[in-house]
Structure formats: C-alpha cells, structure tokens
C-alpha cells in the first residue's frame, strides 16, 4: 500500500495543519482528519497486531465497524485503549500507540503465536487448559485460571491506565417528540420533515460532521449543506459526536456524547463525555449500512479494506489509499468508488464475481468478471492478489494481479442493532443478501440504508416516510433495494481442502475454519457458536463479520441463513466508558450522605465520625492523646458513673396520626398498643408478613389520635414504606396518616445516674422531671430554659436512668449549648456509637446487627412480648413449626474463658473440638466492657444460653485470628433486673 495525500480535494482544512504522534514518531495531519486518515496520508500501514496470532493489521474501514486499526490514545492517567482510529478525530498533539505488540507493531515478538496457529483454533483455550491433568474439573479449573492470566497477557487487548480517571463525566436527561439517529440523506430528511411539522426533534450523529455517506460524495455537497442549514433553522437539536448506543423500553434511548475527546486542551469546566438519557415519543433509525468483507486467505493483511472506506479516504480526506488497486465486489455499490479512484490517478482493476456482459465503466478501469479474491500475497502489506473463479460448487485458481491495495465489497449489512435491542428480530432478505430490520409494535421507524434502501433519492424519500410515520400518519413503507444488477451472495472463497487463514472476525481472529470446527464439534446453535469461537464478541461486536460467520455456519449445517438464526444484538452499539456510566456518582458522591442537625456541633466538640449507612455519626469523642479504645471505654464508664450525651437524631421518626392510629399500631406491632395511655412510650417490635422481625423502636403517644414512632436508623425508610403499603393496599378503611418526620427533630440521649439532674438544670421554670412527674417510659412536651420547646421521653437503651430529648432540628445546637455545660459540671461526657455499642451489648439490647432478617422475636429472646390476645402482622406465620423449634439459634452473651483474651465480631461459635462448617452460632458484636473489665460479646447460638451452660465453646475466626475459648451467658449481662433505669 502506497497511500499519499492529494494536494487538493476532501473536507480537510489544509490551512490548519496538526501534528501528532504514533508509537513515538511525529506526523502531520490536518483539521478535519481522523487519526486513521492522517496515518494513511503518512503511509503508516501497520497499526496494530491481532488478538491471538499477532498478525499485522491496518486500516480496514472508515468508520465504527473498524476491527484492524484499534489503538490506544492519550497518555498516563488519560490513556484510552481500544480506540478505533477511523472514529478518533485528529487534534494537535494527539498521542497514539499501536496495541497488542511488543516491542512495537512492526516487530512484534508475539507474532510467533502465528507459527503455532493450529493450537489456537476454536475452543483451544478451553480444551487445552481445562483438560490438563489431573483431569478433574476442580483442579483443572484452578489450572485454567492460572493459565488464563498468562494467555490474557500474551493475547491481550490494549491496557487501560491503572491510575484514577482524571476526567469527569456528566449525566444529562432530555425529552423530545422525535429522536433521529444518523444524519445521512435519510436522517437529515427525516429530521427536517418532523421539525417542519412542528415536532421537537433531536438528531444524533456519531461522526463530527453531519451527512453520513454524502460526506464522501462531493457532488452532493451543496444539497447536504442546504439540508443541514435548514435543520438548524427548523430548531432541530443537533448532536454530533454522539452515539445512540442503546434503545430501551418506552421510548428511552441512551446516548454518549464525546465532548472533549477531540480537543487538545479542553476547558476545565467541560466534562469529557456526557451520558444522555433521552425519552422520545418516536424514534427514527437512519443508522445506515456497513459494508461486509469476504473470507479468503490473508484477507486481513494491511492494505485490504472495504471499498466504501477507500471512497471516504479519497473524497472526504483527500488521501489516495493506493496506487495499483484491485476492487473485488459482488454488488453495484463500488461503481462510484472505482471511477473516483481512477480519476484520482490510480490504476484500477474491478473484479466482479457477477457476469454483466456489458460494462459502463470508463476505459481506464480494467474489468474482470466472474472472479473473486482467493489469496493475498505479501506479509505486512498487499503485493498481489490471486483470483479464483467459481465452477459448480468449487473454486479454481484464475490467475493473479500485482497491486498494493485490495478493496472488498461483500455486500451491505443494514445497522439493525438498535431495533434489535428492542427485541425486533432482524429478517433475512435473500434477494438483497442482508438482514433487514425486524417488525416492532413500538414507534420505531427505519429509514435509508438501515432499511435496505441503497440509492440516494430513495433514501431521502424513506426519511420523509419515516418522519410521517413518526407523526402518526401511517402509510406503506418504501421498498428496499435499488441496485440495477442483483447482488450475488459471496461469503468465502477457497480452493477445496485448502488450509487458509480466512478471517471472519478480524478483531478476535476467528477464521472460517474455526466456524467449521465448532460445527464439527457439535456447536450447532448460533448462540453457542458465537461463544465457543468468540465470533462477534470483541469490542466491534462483529460489525464486519457476523453475517459471514452465520453464512458459513448455515453452510456447514446445510441450512439456509434464516434457519441458522441470528444472534440478538445487545447494547451498547459501541463501547461506553465506565466513567460515563458512573457520571458524577464517584468519590464522595458515590452514595448519598446524611448529616444530623448536630453534625457541626459534634465536630466542634471533638467528634470522630463514622459512617452508619448513609449517615455520618459521632464514633467517639477522644480527649487529647486518647485512641479509640481508650475513648469509648472512658465514655461508657462515664455514662454508668455520671452522665453522657449521645446524638441519636438519625433514628427514624414517623408521625402516626388519625382516629384509627392506635388500632393501626396495634396491628403493626407484635405487642399491644391499643391501650397505651397518652403521655407514655412503649418499646415495640414489628414483624414482617413471614413472621421474622422487621424492626424495633419506641412509640410515644402524644395525644388521643397522635403518636410518634421511632425506628432504627437503618430501617426508617423500609418501615415507612411498609406502613404506607398497609394503609393504601390492605387497610384503606383505617383513618390514619403516616408521615416521616425524621429530619424535623434533633435528638439526644442523656443517660446515666446524673441524667435527671443534668436535664432538670436546663428546663424552663415550672418544668419538672422528677420520678413522679416523668416516670419510666413517660413522655411529655417540655420547654428548655432558653425557651426551646421539645419532647422528652424517659427511655433507656443503655440500661441507665436515661432520657431522650427532642427539639426542632434548627434548635439542636442551642439545646446542646445548654445541656453540655451542665453535663460537664456533673462530670459527664459526650459519647459516640462505639460507647453506645458497649452499653447496649452489656445490656443485651438488639440492633440491626442482630435483627438481620433471619431472626424471629423468640430468637431475639423477646418472644414473651408478642401478644397472645390479638393478631398482628406476622402473627400467623411466626407459628410455623420450624420457627418454633427450641434448638434455633438464640440471643446470648459471650464471655472469654480467659478474661485476658479478646475475640471478634463475625466469628462463628462451635462446640469444643468441633470447629467445622457453619458452627453452632455466630457473634454479632463485641466490646471491651468497663463494667466487667474484660471483653464481652453478643450473638446467637443453637438452643440459647441454657443449652450451653458450663460448656466450653470455641469462637472461631478462620481468616483473621486464632480460636478463642468462650463461655455462653445470658444476653442480659449487666443489671439484668433493670434496677438502674427504673431508679
């Protein structure tokens, strides 16, 4: 191949030269070039190495179907592997590298794989390495995993950067009446027709210029420019450099807009790409057609490309791709190409497998009829092509011609991918030798060559038809076709019994022999064939080769193509970067973050925060020099000795209001709520329909028809949703309204023997919280000394005398400014989640770690709470025999045998000497207990603590630490009678 830039012609801007590098060498191109056209202009022919055999590969197309010139673009953290060179717009300073070659694409040591190519036939990996001794699946699989790594290295694709992606990506949402995909003559006409009918139209084009095929046809330029101009005037939203990569339900389309991939020095505020979700009432697919190759020996050599590609490089980019050119075809579409190349000064031979008898070609084009390419001679370029002619069912050699470029047109495949995403099964058209778009009931319309319509004016007419159909005016669709001489189907050319390297899927190195081998080995379904040979599974998804593979498969099976079937296309049409999928949802924005109203106050007072679901909560409040273990132990003992204050604002809070509120709660909770007096709180447990525990918390009766329910932090949303479901779907007769008020309140727990004194000192005059005024589980409205109104409930999670104080969220900090100095005077402290955990483990109180969805109310040791006098949610199914078994794992406390030893949450509990399997139970939480002076834990074990009294149990943590001997005790480890909290 001896390509060169012509000094005139094309759409490139010769006044705007650009310099770029490929494999470290500097080259020159022009604005308007793609990386492929610029490399071709510089006569760079070997741009990559193939996947398995490391064969040299060059440019094969001028578009999205490219499976040869696949390169890595960019440096360092911004490296983007597997970029199709014909799709990469050239910019100043662009840096690209060939892939899958070491040390470089011209001299690649990996090419030695080609000498052993028979070992790399279809299914080779599986057969060889899975079957290695000792011939057992388990061991073989392990070996396979080892070998796979080595193979991947030798037969790799481009490698991505291992650094974090420095770019940002946006997600954008849009709506329109009509979405038009593709801007060839059909797409432009469709968009204009719909827009002029008053519809809101979005036109998407993956190229950086509008026009599709007409960009390679200078004779249509004036008309193209007029159409584009009219579109803008008609208010069409035009999106170049944007790929519609998938169609989804109900008119939703996924688009990827490449915002700065073509810019040398992008502005800081711009994202690299935008990921669009577009909802349209109708979709017009003017996605064009892709030219197919033909399988013959060495059909992958650099210098073999599609005929349309040569026309594009010549007419759009002003590059004459070869000097002595053979065009091999089985259809009419190459005519213009042949003429254009000849008039640009090339020596052109047209090899048409069809026999016309007469030719309207110019005299300087040599026509050879009835022949097809059999083999390409030359190693890293084309030196000659040998022909074959068909005789009966066989081929026989028919001479050869020296050339430096071989253009192949094996027919055209309409791009039916997007409607196939919607389940519209493409239908084989034998006359046109291609799959046409399948039928769909959805408002999706195909126009132009995507519908198998080949000629320019007919494409425009079909665009107009599609727009009319999209506007809801149904007429019969135009007929496909348009060639004067019918196509002669041609998929593979080879002499009988010849051993060839005739590629079907270039990117994955799948040959015609591989397809036949797979068939011989019993892979008769096209879906199996695809997976076994990996045909069509590379980043190009077989855009050039799928139909050939299918034709060869059908041939091997002795079937027609439609009977062999086609595989369904799935999104994305072209690769979408992970960064675009993630958008801004990375780093801190990966998940929502919730802060309590006391967040800033906590930080100001020395809190170290931790994540609890989406919440940031104080973990501990370290004094100078303290580490976490010292801090939480001090905090927990201070609560037991004097007083501590803990932010509990994240608890779920739900207002339950209405005349039937009490009845509703009585049905939802397993224990009774119907007779809860006004001014009282009650601890309640709610179950799911299936009888397992859903959540627990206290509910306060504030009035005859008004309750405040609290839930665990984790389950606040779930409980709310469930109650809404019950009220709307099952019990619509109940007059109850629920609303989430979690964010309305700032809440603290004040716990410890000095809790009452601390709070009492902060109350407005005339407010009392003596044992008589506010007994255990009492609730009252209250006013603080600084006038802040709030609620107080005498509730204890820690087992101490304790209160929960609620004030409107905005007054949270003011409440703390009042409470905290008083608590300090009492010798108290602030405490965080870690100390909260210590206090509740000492008491054997359950949290989400215990109530994990597999635990019944009996397992949690709270079975006595469940009412026997009334039915409630879950009351029926908690009576299932297996849930009533006494040997179910039940809540227990855990002490180490040797008080000096520690053990870990997550360890399994096993009988002494029987550490195996899942054990007899598990540990859900551990802490150092200041009250006991050693580590304690909480967890579950079969039969509960009475079954294990006096027995040694092993806490086994297989991955992190050694086995520890423990004893099982009652979960109520500290103050089991509850003397302190009632005091």
């Amino acid at each position: 191949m001896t390509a060169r830039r012509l000094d005139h012609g094309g759409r490139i801007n010769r006044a705007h030269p650009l310099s770029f590098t490929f494999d470290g060498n500097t080259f020159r191109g022009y604005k308007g070039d793609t990386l492929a056209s610029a490399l071709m202009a510089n006569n760079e022919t070997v741009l990559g190495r193939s996947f398995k055999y490391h064969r040299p590969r060059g440019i094969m197309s001028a578009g999205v179907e490219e499976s040869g010139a696949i390169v890595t673009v960019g440096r360092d953290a911004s490296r983007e592997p597997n970029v199709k060179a014909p799709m990469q717009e050239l910019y100043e300073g662009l840096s690209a590298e060939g892939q899958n070659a070491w040390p470089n694409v011209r001299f690649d040591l990996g090419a030695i794989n080609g000498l052993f190519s028979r070992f790399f036939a279809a299914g080779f990996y599986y057969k060889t390495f899975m079957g290695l001794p000792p011939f057992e699946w388990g061991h073989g699989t392990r070996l396979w995993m080892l070998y796979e790594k080595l193979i991947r290295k030798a037969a790799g694709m481009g490698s991505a950067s291992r650094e974090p992606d420095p770019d940002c990506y946006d997600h954008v949402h849009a709506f329109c009446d009509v979405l038009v995909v593709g801007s060839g003559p059909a797409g432009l006409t469709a968009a204009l027709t719909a827009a002029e009918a008053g519809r809101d139209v979005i036109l998407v084009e993956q190229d950086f210029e509008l026009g599709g095929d007409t960009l390679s046809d200078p004779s249509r330029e004036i008309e193209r420019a007029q159409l584009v101009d009219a579109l803008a005037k008609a208010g069409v939203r035009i999106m170049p450099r944007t790929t519609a990569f998938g169609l989804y339900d109900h008119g939703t389309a996924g688009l990827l807009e490449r915002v700065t991939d073509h810019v040398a020095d992008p502005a800081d505020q711009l994202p690299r790409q935008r990921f669009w979700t577009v909802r349209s009432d109708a979709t017009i697919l003017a996605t064009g057609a892709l030219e197919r190759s033909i399988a013959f020996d060495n059909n992958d050599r650099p210098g073999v490309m599609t005929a349309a590609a040569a026309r594009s490089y010549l007419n759009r980019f002003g590059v004459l791709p070869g000097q002595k050119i053979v065009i091999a075809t089985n259809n009419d579409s190459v005519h213009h190409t042949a003429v254009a190349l000849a008039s640009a000064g090339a020596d052109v031979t047209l090899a048409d497998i069809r026999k016309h008898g007469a030719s309207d070609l110019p005299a300087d084009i040599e026509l050879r009829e009835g022949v097809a390419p059999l083999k390409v001679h030359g190693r890293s370029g084309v030196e000659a092509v040998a022909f074959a002619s068909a005789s009966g069912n066989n081929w026989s050699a028919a001479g050869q011609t020296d050339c430096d470029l071989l253009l192949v047109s094996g027919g055209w495949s309409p791009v039916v991918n997007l409607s196939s995403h919607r389940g519209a099964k493409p239908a084989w058209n034998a006359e046109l030798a291609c799959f046409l778009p399948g039928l769909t009931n959805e408002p999706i319309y195909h126009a132009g060559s995507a519908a198998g319509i080949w000629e320019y004016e007919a494409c425009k007419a079909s665009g107009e038809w599609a727009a009319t159909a999209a506007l809801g005016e149904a007429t019969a669709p135009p007929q496909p076709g348009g060639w004067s001489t019918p196509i002669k189907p041609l998929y593979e050319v080879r002499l009988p019994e010849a051993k060839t390297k005739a590629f079907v899927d270039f990117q994955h190195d799948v040959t015609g022999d591989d397809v036949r081998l797979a068939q011989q080995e019993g892979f008769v379904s096209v879906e199996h064939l695809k997976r076994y040979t990996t045909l069509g599974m590379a980043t190009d998804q077989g855009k050039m080769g799928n139909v050939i593979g299918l034709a060869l498969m059908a041939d091997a099976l002795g079937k027609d193509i439609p009977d062999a079937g086609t595989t369904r296309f799935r999104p994305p049409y072209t690769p979408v970067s992970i960064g675009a999928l993630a958008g801004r949802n990375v780093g801190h924005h990966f998940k929502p973050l919730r802060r309590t109203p006391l967040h800033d106050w906590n930080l100001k007072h020395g809190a170290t925060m931790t994540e609890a679901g989406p919440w940031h909560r104080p973990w501990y409040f370290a004094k100078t020099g303290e580490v976490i273990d010292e801090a939480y132990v001090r905090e927990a003992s201070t609560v037991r000795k004097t007083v501590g204050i803990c932010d509990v604002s994240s608890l779920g809070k739900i207002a339950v209001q209405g005349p039937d509120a009490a009845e509703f709660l009585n049905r939802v909770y397993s224990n009774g709520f119907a007779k809860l007096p006004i001014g009282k709180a009650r601890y309640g447990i709610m179950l799911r329909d299936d009888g397992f525990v859903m959540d627990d918390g206290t509910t306060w009766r504030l009035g005859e028809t008004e309750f405040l329910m609290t839930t665990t932090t984790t389950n606040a949303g779930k409980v709310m949703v469930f109650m809404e479901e019950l009220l709307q779907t099952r019990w619509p007769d109940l007059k109850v309204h629920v609303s989430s008020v979690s964010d309305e309140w700032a809440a603290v727990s004040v716990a410890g023997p000095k809790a009452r004194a601390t709070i009492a000192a902060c109350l407005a005059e005339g407010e009392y919280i003596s044992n008589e005024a506010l007994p255990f589980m009492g609730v009252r409205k209250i006013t603080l000394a600084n006038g802040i109104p709030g609620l107080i409930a005498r509730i204890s999670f820690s087992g101490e005398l304790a209160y929960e104080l609620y004030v409107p969220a905005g007054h949270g900090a003011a409440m703390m400014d009042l409470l905290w100095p008083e608590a300090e005077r009492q010798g108290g402290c602030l405490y965080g989640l870690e100390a909260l955990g210590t206090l509740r483990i000492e008491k054997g109180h359950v949290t989400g770690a215990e109530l994990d969805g597999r635990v019944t109310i009996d397992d949690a040791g709270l079975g006595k709470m469940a009412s026997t006098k009334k039915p409630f949610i879950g009351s029926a199914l908690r009576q299932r025999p297996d849930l009533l078994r006494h040997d179910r794992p039940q809540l227990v406390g855990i002490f180490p045998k040797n008080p000096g030893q520690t053990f870990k949450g997550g360890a399994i509990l096993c009988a002494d000497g029987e550490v195996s399997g899942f054990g007899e139970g598990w540990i859900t939480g551990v802490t150092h207990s200041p009250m006991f002076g050693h580590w304690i834990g909480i967890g579950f074990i079969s039969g509960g603590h009475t079954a294990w009294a006096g027995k040694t149990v092993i806490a086994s943590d297989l991955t992190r630490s050694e086995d520890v001997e423990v004893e099982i005790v009652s979960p109520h480890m500290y103050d089991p009678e509850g003397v302190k909290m009632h005091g």
Partner: protein
Amino acid sequence: MIRIPCPFCGTRDHSEFTYGGDASITYPALDAPKEEWHDAVFLRDNICGPQLETWHHVHGCRMWLVIERDTMTHEIMSVRPANPKLSALFEDNSEADQ
C-alpha cells in the same frame, strides 16, 4: 428503563418507583390460619405476559399503584391507585370526562 404513568404525577422513570409485588394477592385477615398466610406470602405464579403488580412512587407522591404490565414486553396496560377508594374516584372522574 420503563416509564410509568403515575395517575398523580404523570409519566416518570421507573427509578422514581420501587417494585412492590403481586397485586393479585388478597392478603388474609390477620387472624386467618397460617396455611392461608403461607399461600398469600409464598405462592407466586411466574407469569410470562400481563401481570398485576404493585409499585410505590417512593420518590414522587408516595402512592402505591396497581399496574398491569406485560413481563415479556414491559408494555404497561393500566395504572391505578392501589387504594380502592381512590381508584374508584379516578374511575368516576374518567367517566365524567367522557
């Protein structure tokens, strides 16, 4: 991605909703025997075609909806409020419109 025409909010992306479950189930009375509850909670048909299901417009109006959806094609045939009283109101209104 499917789009759901919420009777209260208009057509919205399914990401605003959460799937509930089989809307053809009538849950037994709370004091019904556990066998009845077993059937209601655990027995489900695996329907290929139109099925009744509940969806919650959790990031919208928070209403529970009953949707008839084809599990093969995702076509949505009908949407109504799950609350039968509200649903009846909607039907009255649509009749009045005609």
